[in-house]
């Protein structure tokens, strides 16, 4: 993984405030866990029925019955609790989830998220993504700035089937930290060594630049 991507993940970890209940989606978001200090007060939730996720375990130490929603073998910490799938999503839908970090195929300038279906190519199903995107108190996205073909993933309007409308507050990419504002995308921070014009060029919708110095990560 590139240095910029690692710095993006470390930067995303700072979104987590003390005392939060947080769900980290599959893929890049899961890596955020490596940047949370052991004594940091936070409850990590996984939708397959665990509150209080502990460190990921290697094959030799894994419990066959204890995984996260991405299939990784995880552990418990003092104060963890298991619950069934209905209770686990009750927590999500009733507003107890302070923050979720999700992956994306596309994010629109109005915060729409598409991350579950590429018609004709890949339809894995939405899993728990719709509820996480629609009901977490704050939704941030971790994604590469462009897809494999170099096309922007930050777009004016999603072309793929939606996961949820107007849900994304902030986007972390290897290039930038970008907020979704009532006026559209707004650049907040930039990867060290990049200039704003490069980010703008890789973004599929207008990107408002801050006045003055742009913080780097």
């Amino acid at each position, binding site marked *: 993984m590139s240095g910029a991507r690692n710095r993006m993940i470390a930067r995303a970890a700072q979104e987590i405030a003390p005392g939060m209940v947080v769900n980290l989606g599959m893929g890049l978001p899961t890596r955020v866990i490596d940047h949370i200090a052991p004594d940091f007060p936070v*409850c990590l939730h996984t939708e397959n029925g665990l*509150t*209080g996720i502990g460190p990921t375990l290697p094959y030799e130490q894994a419990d066959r019955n204890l995984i996260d929603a991405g299939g990784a073998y995880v552990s418990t*910490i003092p104060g963890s609790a298991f619950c069934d799938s*209905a209770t686990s*999503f*009750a927590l999500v*839908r*009733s507003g107890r989830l302070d923050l979720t970090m999700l992956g994306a195929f596309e994010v629109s300038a109005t915060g729409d998220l598409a991350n579950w279906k590429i018609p004709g190519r890949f339809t894995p199903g939405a899993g728990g993504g719709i509820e996480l995107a629609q009901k977490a108190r704050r939704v941030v996205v971790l994604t590469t700035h462009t897809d494999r073909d170099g096309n922007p993933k930050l777009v004016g309007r999603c072309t793929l089937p939606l996961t949820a409308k107007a849900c994304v507050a902030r986007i972390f990419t290897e290039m930038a930290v970008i907020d979704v504002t009532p006026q559209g995308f707004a650049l907040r921070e930039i990867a060290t060594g990049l200039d704003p014009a490069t980010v703008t060029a890789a973004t599929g919708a207008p990107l408002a630049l801050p006045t003055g110095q742009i913080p780097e990560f």
Partner: protein
Amino acid sequence: MRLPDKTTAMAEAIARIPSGATVMLSGFGVPGTPFALIQELIRQGQDNLTIIKNDANETGMGVDHLLAHGRVKRLITTHIGLNPRAVAMMNAGEIEVEFCAQGILAERIRAGGAGLKAIVTDIGRDTELAQGKPRLDIGGAPAVVELALRCDVALVHAAKADTFGNLTFAATARNFAPLMAMAADRVIAEAEAIVPLGALPPDQVHAPGPFVDHVVALDTLSEEYGVVRRA
């Protein structure tokens, strides 16, 4: 990662309840009723409350104190037959009472706790309890739309709580507590014992900590919590 500490002094926790609030109370009869939190609510003086509880307890206990002190505007319940004051106040128009089939009350609370808008059921279809409620045709049969219930604050009684708010309940004292603990903007749990993180096995927790905001220790149990001697 470590899990935050939610232990709170009783007065401080109850002070978060404003007059006019909607308050859920766990308990079916004596078991599970948060008598100490109710007493503190009476001491602090909040009034004009909407109370949601399975029953109105009995004379001199729990909900009856709230009624006697004139703190209740409205009661959503299933059965008040053991509390003559509740029946009398209802008949005199001093409180509004909304009756609900017991399992439907449980489901409406659970639906609120699960972030659902409503449930659809045929229960009570032929009774006056369904009057005025929206109807829906499901598979050719008429059904009733029962709206989800949420509240500002839920007061629940637990046998044990850890400092993060994971709760366990004793025997039939469980009843409405795990449901109400999901359905409130703020959940205050009184516990007979507060145990350290890790003392409750994760597969034996009845209400997961993330739903709970405040854990209040009960130093002693008042007489109300005891076995009722009946004639």
